[in-house]
Protein backbone atom coordinates (compact mmCIF):
# COMPACT_ATOMS: atom_id res chain seq x y z
CA UNK A 1 0.00 0.00 0.00
CA UNK A 2 1.22 3.46 -0.86
CA UNK A 3 1.93 5.53 2.21
CA UNK A 4 0.77 9.13 2.20
CA UNK A 5 2.61 11.24 4.72
CA UNK A 6 0.63 14.26 5.89
CA UNK A 7 2.31 15.11 9.17
CA UNK A 8 5.07 17.50 8.10
CA UNK A 9 4.51 19.70 11.15
CA UNK A 10 5.68 16.75 13.24
CA UNK A 11 8.76 16.12 11.14
CA UNK A 12 9.88 16.08 7.52
CA UNK A 13 11.91 13.50 5.60
CA UNK A 14 15.52 14.57 5.28
CA UNK A 15 16.10 15.76 1.72
CA UNK A 16 18.44 13.40 -0.20
CA UNK A 17 20.72 16.33 -1.07
CA UNK A 18 20.93 17.16 2.63
CA UNK A 19 21.98 13.60 3.44
CA UNK A 20 24.55 13.78 0.62
CA UNK A 21 25.99 17.01 2.01
CA UNK A 22 26.23 15.53 5.52
CA UNK A 23 27.89 12.23 4.65
CA UNK A 24 31.53 13.38 4.23
CA UNK A 25 31.47 14.84 7.73
CA UNK A 26 31.01 11.53 9.51
CA UNK A 27 34.12 9.59 8.55
CA UNK A 28 36.11 11.71 6.10
CA UNK A 29 36.13 15.30 7.30
CA UNK A 30 35.46 14.16 10.83
CA UNK A 31 37.79 16.51 12.67
CA UNK A 32 36.89 18.58 15.70
CA UNK A 33 36.28 22.18 14.58
CA UNK A 34 38.32 23.35 17.57
CA UNK A 35 41.44 21.52 16.34
CA UNK A 36 44.00 23.51 14.42
CA UNK A 37 45.05 20.90 11.85
CA UNK A 38 43.37 20.88 8.47
CA UNK A 39 40.83 18.15 9.31
CA UNK A 40 39.57 20.30 12.13
CA UNK A 41 39.69 23.53 10.20
CA UNK A 42 37.82 22.00 7.28
CA UNK A 43 35.05 20.99 9.65
CA UNK A 44 35.08 24.46 11.16
CA UNK A 45 34.79 25.94 7.68
CA UNK A 46 31.74 23.79 6.98
CA UNK A 47 30.11 24.86 10.23
CA UNK A 48 30.74 28.52 9.44
CA UNK A 49 29.37 28.10 5.94
CA UNK A 50 26.19 26.60 7.39
CA UNK A 51 25.99 29.51 9.82
CA UNK A 52 26.17 31.99 6.95
CA UNK A 53 23.40 30.17 5.09
CA UNK A 54 21.07 30.17 8.09
CA UNK A 55 21.81 33.85 8.68
CA UNK A 56 21.15 34.71 5.03
CA UNK A 57 17.75 33.00 5.00
CA UNK A 58 16.46 35.11 7.90
CA UNK A 59 18.28 38.37 7.14
CA UNK A 60 20.71 38.08 10.05
CA UNK A 61 24.47 38.26 10.47
CA UNK A 62 26.28 34.95 10.79
CA UNK A 63 27.66 35.80 14.25
CA UNK A 64 24.06 36.12 15.45
CA UNK A 65 23.36 32.40 14.87
CA UNK A 66 23.94 29.90 17.68
CA UNK A 67 23.58 26.23 16.78
CA UNK A 68 21.58 24.11 19.20
CA UNK A 69 20.29 20.55 19.45
CA UNK A 70 16.94 21.64 18.00
CA UNK A 71 13.91 23.83 18.46
CA UNK A 72 13.31 22.82 22.06
CA UNK A 73 16.81 23.81 23.12
CA UNK A 74 16.56 27.05 21.15
CA UNK A 75 13.32 27.94 22.98
CA UNK A 76 14.73 26.98 26.38
CA UNK A 77 17.92 28.91 25.70
CA UNK A 78 16.01 32.04 24.66
CA UNK A 79 13.67 32.03 27.66
CA UNK A 80 16.01 30.90 30.42
CA UNK A 81 19.01 32.66 28.91
CA UNK A 82 17.25 36.03 28.82
CA UNK A 83 15.50 35.50 32.15
CA UNK A 84 18.66 34.73 34.12
CA UNK A 85 20.68 37.42 32.35
CA UNK A 86 18.09 40.08 33.18
CA UNK A 87 16.95 39.10 36.67
CA UNK A 88 18.28 42.38 37.99
CA UNK A 89 15.93 44.30 35.69
CA UNK A 90 12.74 42.38 36.35
CA UNK A 91 11.06 39.01 36.66
CA UNK A 92 8.08 39.25 34.32
CA UNK A 93 7.69 37.34 31.04
CA UNK A 94 4.78 37.59 28.62
CA UNK A 95 3.83 34.67 26.40
CA UNK A 96 0.67 33.09 24.95
CA UNK A 97 -1.56 30.17 25.79
CA UNK A 98 -0.95 28.46 22.42
CA UNK A 99 2.85 28.24 22.49
CA UNK A 100 4.65 24.95 21.96
CA UNK A 101 5.37 22.98 25.15
CA UNK A 102 9.05 23.88 24.77
CA UNK A 103 8.09 27.49 25.57
CA UNK A 104 5.28 26.81 28.05
CA UNK A 105 7.21 24.26 30.09
CA UNK A 106 10.32 26.46 30.11
CA UNK A 107 8.10 29.23 31.49
CA UNK A 108 6.70 26.89 34.15
CA UNK A 109 10.22 26.01 35.18
CA UNK A 110 11.09 29.72 35.43
CA UNK A 111 7.95 30.30 37.49
CA UNK A 112 9.33 27.89 40.09
CA UNK A 113 12.45 30.01 40.43
CA UNK A 114 10.51 33.23 41.04
CA UNK A 115 9.63 34.55 37.60
CA UNK A 116 6.11 35.69 36.84
CA UNK A 117 4.51 34.54 33.63
CA UNK A 118 1.58 36.17 31.85
CA UNK A 119 -0.06 33.78 29.39
CA UNK A 120 -2.12 35.80 26.93
CA UNK A 121 -5.35 34.39 25.50
CA UNK A 122 -6.09 34.09 21.77
CA UNK A 123 -9.27 34.66 19.79
CA UNK A 124 -11.35 31.92 18.13
CA UNK A 125 -8.86 31.77 15.24
CA UNK A 126 -5.85 31.49 17.50
CA UNK A 127 -4.72 35.08 16.98
CA UNK A 128 -2.97 37.02 19.72
CA UNK A 129 -4.13 40.63 20.07
CA UNK A 130 -1.03 42.89 20.02
CA UNK A 131 -2.96 45.27 22.25
CA UNK A 132 -3.09 42.56 24.91
CA UNK A 133 0.71 42.43 24.78
CA UNK A 134 0.88 46.21 25.24
CA UNK A 135 -1.47 46.07 28.22
CA UNK A 136 0.38 43.20 29.86
CA UNK A 137 3.73 45.03 29.92
CA UNK A 138 4.82 46.22 33.37
CA UNK A 139 8.03 47.84 34.55
CA UNK A 140 9.16 44.32 35.53
CA UNK A 141 8.72 42.82 32.06
CA UNK A 142 11.98 41.56 30.55
CA UNK A 143 10.81 39.32 27.70
CA UNK A 144 7.90 38.77 25.33
CA UNK A 145 7.70 35.40 23.55
CA UNK A 146 5.11 34.84 20.81
CA UNK A 147 5.34 32.08 18.23
CA UNK A 148 5.43 33.04 14.55
CA UNK A 149 2.86 30.40 13.58
CA UNK A 150 1.01 27.71 15.44
CA UNK A 151 2.26 24.17 14.91
CA UNK A 152 -1.22 22.84 15.60
CA UNK A 153 -3.73 25.14 13.92
CA UNK A 154 -1.37 26.97 11.56
CA UNK A 155 -2.42 30.49 12.50
CA UNK A 156 0.24 33.10 11.65
CA UNK A 157 0.56 35.61 14.49
CA UNK A 158 0.96 39.38 14.12
CA UNK A 159 4.59 39.08 15.18
CA UNK A 160 5.74 42.26 13.44
CA UNK A 161 3.29 44.39 15.39
CA UNK A 162 4.12 42.68 18.66
CA UNK A 163 7.81 43.14 17.89
CA UNK A 164 7.24 46.86 17.46
CA UNK A 165 5.45 47.09 20.80
CA UNK A 166 8.20 45.19 22.60
CA UNK A 167 10.92 47.31 21.01
CA UNK A 168 9.20 50.57 21.91
CA UNK A 169 9.03 49.35 25.50
CA UNK A 170 12.69 48.28 25.42
CA UNK A 171 11.82 44.65 26.08
CA UNK A 172 13.43 41.62 24.43
CA UNK A 173 11.24 39.78 21.95
CA UNK A 174 11.55 36.08 21.13
CA UNK A 175 9.61 34.18 18.49
CA UNK A 176 9.45 30.42 18.15
CA UNK A 177 9.63 30.24 14.35
CA UNK A 178 10.13 26.51 14.05
CA UNK A 179 7.06 26.19 11.80
CA UNK A 180 7.80 29.16 9.54
CA UNK A 181 11.54 29.29 8.73
CA UNK A 182 12.01 27.71 5.33
CA UNK A 183 8.26 27.71 4.67
CA UNK A 184 7.29 31.37 4.53
CA UNK A 185 9.59 34.42 4.38
CA UNK A 186 11.16 35.23 7.75
CA UNK A 187 13.26 38.35 8.27
CA UNK A 188 14.47 39.17 11.75
CA UNK A 189 14.53 42.93 11.12
CA UNK A 190 11.07 43.00 9.60
CA UNK A 191 9.69 40.92 12.48
CA UNK A 192 11.64 43.03 14.99
CA UNK A 193 12.70 39.98 16.95
CA UNK A 194 15.74 39.77 19.20
CA UNK A 195 15.63 36.01 19.41
CA UNK A 196 14.20 33.44 17.00
CA UNK A 197 14.09 29.63 17.20
CA UNK A 198 14.77 27.34 14.23
CA UNK A 199 14.59 23.57 13.89
CA UNK A 200 16.22 21.64 11.04
CA UNK A 201 13.94 18.61 10.87
CA UNK A 202 10.90 20.76 10.16
CA UNK A 203 12.50 21.96 6.92
CA UNK A 204 13.83 18.71 5.45
CA UNK A 205 16.99 18.77 7.52
CA UNK A 206 18.14 16.19 10.07
CA UNK A 207 16.75 15.75 13.59
CA UNK A 208 18.82 16.86 16.57
CA UNK A 209 19.93 20.23 15.26
CA UNK A 210 18.53 23.73 15.26
CA UNK A 211 19.56 27.29 15.88
CA UNK A 212 18.76 30.33 17.93
CA UNK A 213 19.10 33.72 16.32
CA UNK A 214 20.42 36.17 18.93
CA UNK A 215 20.43 39.83 17.91
CA UNK A 216 23.85 41.47 18.32
CA UNK A 217 24.25 42.91 21.80
CA UNK A 218 21.68 40.58 23.41
CA UNK A 219 23.14 38.96 26.50
CA UNK A 220 22.13 35.41 27.41
CA UNK A 221 23.16 33.09 30.21
CA UNK A 222 24.22 29.81 28.54
CA UNK A 223 22.43 26.55 29.30
CA UNK A 224 25.57 24.54 28.61
CA UNK A 225 28.88 25.30 30.27
CA UNK A 226 32.17 23.85 29.11
CA UNK A 227 34.30 24.68 26.11
CA UNK A 228 34.30 27.93 24.21
CA UNK A 229 32.26 26.78 21.23
CA UNK A 230 29.65 29.09 19.69
CA UNK A 231 31.41 32.13 21.17
CA UNK A 232 30.84 30.74 24.67
CA UNK A 233 27.10 30.70 24.19
CA UNK A 234 26.78 26.94 23.84
CA UNK A 235 29.52 24.60 25.02
CA UNK A 236 30.06 21.19 23.47
CA UNK A 237 31.74 19.91 20.32
CA UNK A 238 29.65 20.97 17.35
CA UNK A 239 27.42 18.35 15.74
CA UNK A 240 29.18 19.00 12.44
CA UNK A 241 27.25 16.66 10.09
CA UNK A 242 23.91 17.86 11.46
CA UNK A 243 24.91 21.53 11.24
CA UNK A 244 26.04 20.99 7.65
CA UNK A 245 22.67 19.33 7.04
CA UNK A 246 20.82 22.32 8.48
CA UNK A 247 22.86 24.61 6.23
CA UNK A 248 21.99 22.57 3.15
CA UNK A 249 18.31 22.33 4.13
CA UNK A 250 18.13 26.08 4.59
CA UNK A 251 19.81 26.62 1.22
CA UNK A 252 17.30 24.35 -0.53
CA UNK A 253 14.35 25.94 1.26
CA UNK A 254 15.46 29.40 0.22
CA UNK A 255 15.56 28.43 -3.46
CA UNK A 256 11.86 27.91 -3.98
CA UNK A 257 10.16 29.23 -0.86
CA UNK A 258 7.55 31.33 -2.65
CA UNK A 259 6.70 28.76 -5.31
CA UNK A 260 6.36 25.89 -2.86
CA UNK A 261 4.24 27.97 -0.48
CA UNK A 262 1.93 28.79 -3.36
CA UNK A 263 1.65 25.15 -4.43
CA UNK A 264 0.92 23.99 -0.88
CA UNK A 265 -1.62 26.74 -0.27
CA UNK A 266 -3.54 25.50 -3.32
CA UNK A 267 -3.49 21.90 -2.05
CA UNK A 268 -4.36 23.06 1.48
CA UNK A 269 -7.44 24.91 0.30
CA UNK A 270 -8.50 21.97 -1.89
CA UNK A 271 -8.35 19.71 1.15
CA UNK A 272 -10.20 22.16 3.42
CA UNK A 273 -12.87 22.70 0.80
CA UNK A 274 -13.24 18.99 0.06
CA UNK A 275 -13.55 18.00 3.71
CA UNK A 276 -16.26 20.61 4.24
CA UNK A 277 -18.16 19.37 1.19
CA UNK A 278 -17.91 15.65 1.84
CA UNK A 279 -18.31 15.47 5.60
CA UNK A 280 -21.10 17.33 7.38
CA UNK A 281 -20.65 18.99 10.74
CA UNK A 282 -16.97 19.81 10.44
CA UNK A 283 -15.21 23.06 11.24
CA UNK A 284 -11.85 24.48 10.30
CA UNK A 285 -9.64 25.21 13.30
CA UNK A 286 -7.36 28.22 13.00
CA UNK A 287 -7.52 31.25 10.74
CA UNK A 288 -8.85 30.74 7.17
CA UNK A 289 -6.23 32.97 5.50
CA UNK A 290 -3.59 34.00 8.08
CA UNK A 291 -2.48 30.41 7.95
CA UNK A 292 0.59 28.31 7.19
CA UNK A 293 0.51 27.15 3.55
CA UNK A 294 0.60 23.49 4.57
CA UNK A 295 -1.75 23.28 7.57
CA UNK A 296 -5.25 21.80 7.60
CA UNK A 297 -6.84 21.33 11.02
CA UNK A 298 -10.48 20.33 11.26
CA UNK A 299 -12.82 19.17 13.99
CA UNK A 300 -15.26 16.49 12.97
CA UNK A 301 -18.30 16.24 15.24
CA UNK A 302 -19.21 13.05 17.15
CA UNK A 303 -15.98 11.19 16.46
CA UNK A 304 -12.68 10.95 18.29
CA UNK A 305 -9.31 11.77 16.75
CA UNK A 306 -7.25 8.71 17.55
CA UNK A 307 -9.81 6.32 16.16
CA UNK A 308 -9.81 8.38 12.94
CA UNK A 309 -5.98 8.32 12.87
CA UNK A 310 -5.87 4.54 13.29
CA UNK A 311 -8.35 4.08 10.47
CA UNK A 312 -6.42 6.52 8.27
CA UNK A 313 -3.23 4.61 9.06
CA UNK A 314 -4.92 1.41 7.88
CA UNK A 315 -5.44 3.26 4.57
CA UNK A 316 -1.80 4.34 4.53
CA UNK A 317 -2.46 7.96 5.52
CA UNK A 318 -0.33 9.50 8.31
CA UNK A 319 -1.91 12.46 10.12
CA UNK A 320 -2.20 13.87 13.64
CA UNK A 321 -4.84 14.83 16.23
CA UNK A 322 -5.29 17.14 19.20
CA UNK A 323 -7.12 14.42 21.08
CA UNK A 324 -5.78 13.44 24.47
CA UNK A 325 -5.95 9.79 23.59
CA UNK A 326 -2.57 10.03 21.94
CA UNK A 327 -0.91 11.28 25.10
CA UNK A 328 -0.69 10.11 28.68
CA UNK A 329 -2.65 13.11 29.94
CA UNK A 330 -6.33 12.87 29.21
CA UNK A 331 -6.70 16.55 28.44
CA UNK A 332 -7.08 17.43 24.79
CA UNK A 333 -4.76 19.92 23.04
CA UNK A 334 -4.18 23.10 25.05
CA UNK A 335 -4.19 25.02 21.77
CA UNK A 336 -7.65 23.88 20.68
CA UNK A 337 -9.02 24.58 24.17
CA UNK A 338 -7.45 28.06 24.05
CA UNK A 339 -9.35 28.68 20.81
CA UNK A 340 -12.51 28.00 22.80
CA UNK A 341 -13.36 24.57 21.42
CA UNK A 342 -15.46 22.36 23.70
CA UNK A 343 -13.53 19.22 24.73
CA UNK A 344 -15.45 16.86 22.43
CA UNK A 345 -14.56 19.00 19.40
CA UNK A 346 -10.94 19.16 20.49
CA UNK A 347 -10.95 15.37 20.80
CA UNK A 348 -12.45 15.18 17.32
CA UNK A 349 -9.70 17.16 15.63
CA UNK A 350 -7.51 16.03 12.76
CA UNK A 351 -4.40 17.79 11.50
CA UNK A 352 -3.00 17.25 8.04
CA UNK A 353 0.26 19.06 7.26
CA UNK A 354 1.38 18.91 3.66
CA UNK A 355 4.91 18.85 2.31
CA UNK A 356 7.21 18.74 -0.67
CA UNK A 357 6.31 15.24 -1.82
CA UNK A 358 2.55 15.61 -1.58
CA UNK A 359 0.48 15.93 -4.70
CA UNK A 360 -3.13 16.58 -5.56
CA UNK A 361 -3.60 12.80 -5.74
CA UNK A 362 -2.74 12.59 -2.02
CA UNK A 363 -5.37 15.17 -1.19
CA UNK A 364 -7.90 13.27 -3.28
CA UNK A 365 -7.02 10.02 -1.53
CA UNK A 366 -7.79 11.59 1.88
CA UNK A 367 -11.07 12.94 0.55
CA UNK A 368 -11.86 9.47 -0.77
CA UNK A 369 -11.21 7.51 2.43
CA UNK A 370 -12.08 9.89 5.27
CA UNK A 371 -15.86 10.19 4.72
CA UNK A 372 -16.22 6.39 5.04
CA UNK A 373 -14.12 6.33 8.20
CA UNK A 374 -16.18 9.11 9.77
CA UNK A 375 -19.45 7.37 8.81
CA UNK A 376 -18.28 4.12 10.38
CA UNK A 377 -17.25 5.82 13.62
CA UNK A 378 -20.35 7.99 13.76
CA UNK A 379 -22.48 4.86 13.47
CA UNK A 380 -21.05 3.75 16.81
CA UNK A 381 -20.97 7.17 18.45
CA UNK A 382 -23.24 7.75 21.45
CA UNK A 383 -22.90 11.51 20.86
CA UNK A 384 -24.92 11.38 17.68
CA UNK A 385 -28.19 10.50 19.39
CA UNK A 386 -31.05 12.83 18.63
CA UNK A 387 -28.94 14.56 16.01
CA UNK A 388 -29.26 14.20 12.33
Amino acid at each position, binding site marked *: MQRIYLDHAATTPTHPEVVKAMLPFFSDTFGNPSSIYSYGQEAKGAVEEARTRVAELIGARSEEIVFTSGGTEADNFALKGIAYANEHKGNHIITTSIEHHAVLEACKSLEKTGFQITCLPVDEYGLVDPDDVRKAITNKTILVSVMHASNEVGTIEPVEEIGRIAREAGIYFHSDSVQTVGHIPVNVDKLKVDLLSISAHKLYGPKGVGALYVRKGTKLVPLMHGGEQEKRRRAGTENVPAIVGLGKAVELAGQDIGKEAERLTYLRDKLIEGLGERIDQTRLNGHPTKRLPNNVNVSIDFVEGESMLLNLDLEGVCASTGSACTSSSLEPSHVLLALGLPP*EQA*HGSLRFTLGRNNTQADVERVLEVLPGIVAKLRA*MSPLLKGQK
Partner: protein
Amino acid sequence: MPDAWSLYSNKVMDHFKNPRNVGEIENPDGVGHVGNPVCGDIMELYIKVKDGIIVDAKFKTFGCGAAIATSSMVTEIVKGKSLKEALKISNKTVAEALDGLPAIKMHCSVLAEEALKSAIEDYLSKTNKKGDSNKSERPS
Protein backbone atom coordinates in the same frame (compact mmCIF):
# COMPACT_ATOMS: atom_id res chain seq x y z
CA MET B 1 1.23 -6.96 10.41
CA PRO B 2 1.47 -5.25 13.84
CA ASP B 3 4.94 -5.97 15.16
CA ALA B 4 6.69 -5.11 18.41
CA TRP B 5 6.56 -1.42 17.49
CA SER B 6 2.83 -1.17 16.91
CA LEU B 7 0.78 0.72 19.47
CA TYR B 8 -1.80 -2.05 19.78
CA SER B 9 -1.88 -5.86 19.71
CA ASN B 10 -3.36 -7.75 16.77
CA LYS B 11 -6.41 -8.53 18.85
CA VAL B 12 -7.05 -4.89 19.72
CA MET B 13 -6.74 -3.98 16.06
CA ASP B 14 -9.09 -6.82 15.10
CA HIS B 15 -11.77 -5.58 17.51
CA PHE B 16 -11.11 -2.00 16.44
CA LYS B 17 -11.44 -2.80 12.74
CA ASN B 18 -14.40 -5.13 13.14
CA PRO B 19 -16.09 -4.20 16.40
CA ARG B 20 -18.61 -6.77 17.61
CA ASN B 21 -22.04 -5.87 18.91
CA VAL B 22 -22.15 -2.23 17.81
CA GLY B 23 -25.48 -0.50 18.29
CA GLU B 24 -28.35 -0.16 20.70
CA ILE B 25 -30.79 -2.74 21.99
CA GLU B 26 -34.43 -1.80 21.65
CA ASN B 27 -36.09 -1.85 25.07
CA PRO B 28 -32.94 -2.86 26.88
CA ASP B 29 -33.14 -4.32 30.36
CA GLY B 30 -30.16 -2.28 31.49
CA VAL B 31 -28.09 0.62 30.16
CA GLY B 32 -24.69 1.74 31.39
CA HIS B 33 -23.42 5.20 30.54
CA VAL B 34 -19.87 6.11 31.59
CA GLY B 35 -17.09 8.56 30.70
CA ASN B 36 -17.26 12.21 29.70
CA PRO B 37 -16.25 14.47 26.83
CA VAL B 38 -13.37 16.02 28.79
CA CYS B 39 -11.40 12.78 29.00
CA GLY B 40 -12.45 11.92 25.45
CA ASP B 41 -14.12 8.55 26.06
CA ILE B 42 -17.85 7.93 26.33
CA MET B 43 -19.29 4.42 26.47
CA GLU B 44 -22.88 3.25 26.42
CA LEU B 45 -23.55 -0.40 27.07
CA TYR B 46 -26.94 -2.10 26.63
CA ILE B 47 -27.93 -5.49 28.02
CA LYS B 48 -30.83 -7.86 27.61
CA VAL B 49 -31.40 -10.24 30.56
CA LYS B 50 -33.38 -13.46 30.57
CA ASP B 51 -33.65 -15.76 33.56
CA GLY B 52 -30.64 -14.19 35.19
CA ILE B 53 -28.49 -14.59 32.09
CA ILE B 54 -27.22 -11.74 29.90
CA VAL B 55 -28.49 -12.92 26.54
CA ASP B 56 -27.45 -9.89 24.50
CA ALA B 57 -25.12 -6.94 24.85
CA LYS B 58 -24.44 -4.00 22.55
CA PHE B 59 -22.44 -0.80 22.78
CA LYS B 60 -21.92 2.66 21.42
CA THR B 61 -18.58 4.35 22.05
CA PHE B 62 -16.95 7.70 21.35
CA GLY B 63 -13.26 7.24 21.95
CA CYS B 64 -9.88 6.01 20.87
CA GLY B 65 -8.97 2.64 19.38
CA ALA B 66 -8.58 1.06 22.81
CA ALA B 67 -11.96 2.39 23.95
CA ILE B 68 -13.68 0.83 20.94
CA ALA B 69 -11.81 -2.47 21.26
CA THR B 70 -12.51 -2.81 25.00
CA SER B 71 -16.20 -2.02 24.44
CA SER B 72 -16.36 -4.66 21.75
CA MET B 73 -14.51 -7.23 23.86
CA VAL B 74 -16.55 -6.70 27.02
CA THR B 75 -19.81 -7.23 25.13
CA GLU B 76 -18.38 -10.44 23.66
CA ILE B 77 -17.25 -11.75 27.05
CA VAL B 78 -20.47 -10.95 28.86
CA LYS B 79 -22.89 -12.63 26.49
CA GLY B 80 -24.23 -15.86 27.97
CA LYS B 81 -22.91 -15.08 31.44
CA SER B 82 -25.06 -14.96 34.57
CA LEU B 83 -25.33 -11.62 36.32
CA LYS B 84 -23.18 -12.96 39.11
CA GLU B 85 -20.47 -14.04 36.68
CA ALA B 86 -20.76 -10.77 34.75
CA LEU B 87 -20.11 -8.73 37.88
CA LYS B 88 -16.82 -10.56 38.28
CA ILE B 89 -15.54 -9.31 34.92
CA SER B 90 -12.77 -6.85 35.72
CA ASN B 91 -10.83 -4.43 33.57
CA LYS B 92 -7.97 -6.92 33.66
CA THR B 93 -10.20 -9.64 32.22
CA VAL B 94 -10.97 -7.34 29.29
CA ALA B 95 -7.36 -6.18 28.78
CA GLU B 96 -6.03 -9.74 28.94
CA ALA B 97 -8.62 -10.98 26.46
CA LEU B 98 -7.22 -8.34 24.09
CA ASP B 99 -3.64 -9.58 24.62
CA GLY B 100 -2.89 -6.49 26.68
CA LEU B 101 -3.16 -2.73 26.29
CA PRO B 102 -0.52 -0.01 26.37
CA ALA B 103 -0.14 1.33 29.94
CA ILE B 104 -1.60 4.72 29.03
CA LYS B 105 -4.69 2.97 27.64
CA MET B 106 -5.53 0.86 30.69
CA HIS B 107 -8.14 3.45 31.71
CA CYS B 108 -10.16 2.35 28.66
CA SER B 109 -10.48 -1.14 30.09
CA VAL B 110 -11.56 0.38 33.42
CA LEU B 111 -14.24 2.26 31.53
CA ALA B 112 -15.44 -0.96 29.90
CA GLU B 113 -15.71 -2.64 33.30
CA GLU B 114 -17.59 0.35 34.71
CA ALA B 115 -19.95 0.47 31.72
CA LEU B 116 -20.87 -3.17 32.26
CA LYS B 117 -21.33 -2.74 36.04
CA SER B 118 -23.43 0.35 35.50
CA ALA B 119 -25.66 -1.50 33.00
CA ILE B 120 -26.15 -4.36 35.48
CA GLU B 121 -26.90 -1.91 38.30
CA ASP B 122 -29.41 -0.18 36.06
CA TYR B 123 -31.09 -3.53 35.40
CA LEU B 124 -31.12 -4.42 39.09
CA SER B 125 -32.58 -1.10 40.16
CA LYS B 126 -35.32 -1.42 37.54
CA THR B 127 -36.21 -4.98 38.53
CA ASN B 128 -36.19 -4.01 42.21
CA LYS B 129 -38.69 -1.26 41.52
CA LYS B 130 -40.94 -3.69 39.69
CA GLY B 131 -41.23 -5.81 42.80
CA ASP B 132 -39.52 -8.93 43.87
CA SER B 133 -40.49 -11.15 40.93
CA ASN B 134 -36.89 -11.08 39.73
CA LYS B 135 -35.36 -11.38 43.13
CA SER B 136 -33.81 -14.71 42.33
CA GLU B 137 -31.71 -13.05 39.64
CA ARG B 138 -29.91 -10.81 42.06
CA PRO B 139 -26.42 -11.85 42.76
CA SER B 140 -25.80 -12.66 46.36
